[in-house]
């Protein structure tokens, strides 16, 4: 029956994605806005003023202070929510003119340790590099007039291309990897939520029927047992299908907000990402959607089998634990291990877990490795058919009523370990 309890998780998926996309987008725009920096110009010379101008050119919002105690100024800037202070010491211009290395002092005021927040702290390096460029240009112009300073410093430059499959596009590899990572890193988390919610829903529906004894009534009606399982699976499957659709819509909106932002991704990188096919096209969405749907169906069939062990709604959480571990395992493994370079044993172990495939599908789609994605989907559906048959078999015998977890030993040696209790339950105790 369609209730708010079933609708809310589906709506939640879309809201989470859309929220994440918006938050990341806003953060990136914040990072892309001119970063305020306070220049403490104790030299107050032509060169030091020029440096402040250069900082403005490389997207800093410069406030210049020419007198005061350095420590006091830093504290004041920090209290006024400033982010950086650059101190140009007295005698700076004279030292440059004497061709002696000079030191400026930078203060980075740390407030946020989030990934995006940290990005702001590194831009002082960009400021330093811009200043060095200027000083280097000055030396070349005065030391070797007539020579092109830019040509001397950048006699060799690289035009970076990234190649995926047979397509190459101009762009910075690190930036492109960064954007793709942002797209794919969220998939397992949301997928984990979808799978667990759908599995809990069906296990709870079976446990609830057992607890209320509506299952006994249903089993005595002239409705085929296979039809009962199919109806349960179909109902949850429809929820799963709608969940996957919501998942795809949410993800599209999330990715759209990432790529559409002017802040985070540069124009070149955006173009390269489009050209390299590192955004999901219709085929990509269909394949990813199928993989997610198949993953959910496998989870549902496992949940039906596990749900048959449940005596009541309270035991559903314990029953579902092995499934949760199965979903988490590939996520954790693929976080630390590259599937392409993993040992054959580990690689096949990852492939054997049906939930690895939706996690990895996006990466393989981006890499144009459609065979692996297709094989993964086929494997998931084959496994689903086997598990659904087992589930139907359980419903067609009296095991659906007599199977249960062996709770007699609860509180003893294995009492606190649900997984051990489940292993124990393989030695079925009947009522």
């Amino acid at each position, binding site marked *: 029956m369609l209730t708010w309890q079933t609708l809310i998780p589906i709506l939640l998926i879309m809201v989470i994605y859309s929220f994440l996309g918006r938050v990341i987008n806003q953060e990136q725009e914040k990072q892309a806005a001119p970063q305020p920096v306070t220049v403490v110009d104790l030299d107050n010379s032509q060169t030091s003023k020029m440096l402040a101008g250069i900082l403005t050119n490389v997207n800093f919002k410069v406030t210049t202070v020419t007198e005061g105690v350095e420590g006091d100024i830093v504290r004041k800037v920090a209290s006024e929510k400033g982010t950086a202070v650059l101190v140009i010491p007295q005698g700076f211009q004279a030292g440059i003119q004497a061709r002696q290395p000079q030191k400026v002092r930078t203060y980075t005021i740390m407030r946020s340790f989030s990934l995006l927040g940290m990005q702001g702290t590194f831009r002082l390096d960009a400021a330093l590099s811009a200043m060095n460029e200027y000083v280097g240009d000055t030396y070349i112009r005065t030391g070797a007039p007539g020579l092109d300073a830019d040509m001397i410093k950048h006699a060799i430059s690289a035009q970076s291309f990234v190649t995926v499959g047979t397509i190459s596009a101009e762009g910075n590899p690190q930036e492109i990897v960064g954007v793709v990572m942002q797209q794919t890193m969220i998939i397992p988390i949301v997928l984990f939520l979808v799978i667990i919610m759908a599995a809990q829903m069906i296990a709870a529906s079976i446990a609830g029927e057992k607890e209320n*004894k509506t299952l006994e009534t249903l*089993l*005595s*009606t002239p*409705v085929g047992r296979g039809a009962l399982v199919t109806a349960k699976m179909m109902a949850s499957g429809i929820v799963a299908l709608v969940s996957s659709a919501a998942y795809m819509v949410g993800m599209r909106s999330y990715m759209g907000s990432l790529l559409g932002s002017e802040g985070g991704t540069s124009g070149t990188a955006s173009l390269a990402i489009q050209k390299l096919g590192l955004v999901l096209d219709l085929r990509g969405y269909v394949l990813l959607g199928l993989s997610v749907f198949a993953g959910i169906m496998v989870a549902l069939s496992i949940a039906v089998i596990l749900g048959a062990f449940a005596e009541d709604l309270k035991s559903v959480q314990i029953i579902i634990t092995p499934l949760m571990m199965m979903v988490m395992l590939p996520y954790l493994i693929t976080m630390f291990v590259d599937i392409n370079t993993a040992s054959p044993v580990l690689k096949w172990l990852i492939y054997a877990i049906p939930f690895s495939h939706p996690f990895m599908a996006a990466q393989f789609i981006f890499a144009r490795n459609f065979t692996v994605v297709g094989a993964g989907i086929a494997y998931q559906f084959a496994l689903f058919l086997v598990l659904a048959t087992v589930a139907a078999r359980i419903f067609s015998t*009296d095991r659906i*009523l007599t199977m249960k977890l062996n709770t007699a030993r609860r509180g003893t040696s294995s009492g606190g370990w649900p997984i051990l209790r489940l292993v124990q339950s393989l030695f079925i*105790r*009947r009522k």
Partner: protein
Amino acid sequence: MEQALVVENLKKSYGKFEALHGISFEVAPGEIFALIGPNGAGKTTALRVVATILQPTSGTAHVYGMDVQKDAARIREIISYLPEEAGAYKNLTGLGYLRFMAELFAADTAVQREYIQRASDITGLGERLRDKIGTYSKGMTRKLLLSRAVMTRPRLAVIDEPTSGLDVVAAIDIRESIRGTAAEGMAVLLSSHNMLEIEYLSDRVAIIDKGTIHDVGTPQGLKDKYGKANLEEVFVQVVKQ
């Protein structure tokens, strides 16, 4: 005349535990037959086997000549089973629940309507049938479930502890409903550990304890046989022997 139910040497084991040690009894059409015994006697197991939701370990049970194992699907079309303390879907209204169950028994909407009408009449819940079951008292839910169990005019109704946990008024209503529908020709197999209720309700009684039927007879016949004033005293004497 063909018997509504014939149970012969029926055994049922759960793992190593044998819950039924080979029980035998018969129920005639229109007869109310009761299994009486304490908790754990094997009453529910016997009822579940007859209702085709448990499979016997050995022995046979035939409903109107059909075997509970081989002809389970056909038997389910002519019986109804009401488990002890059964619930209903709390999100549905009483009418919604009756409609849902009617659809499981009949494809024809006219037949479904007839079932729902009959059940509505039997429940006596009136307008409350439009309320969600979650708001019903235990007695109201039991009346709804009993009316559901008899709305299809089953040839055999299997009812486990019909009035367990109900107040006196609700229990009397339920008993009257069972008697009324049995009078129309429906055979009833029921179980109870309330001996006085059984004495009032049943045509014949089987005394069961620890998976074995110790005696079968009419309530009056058993009282006369053992020289006791009521079935409770008969039960105690039979079990002690």
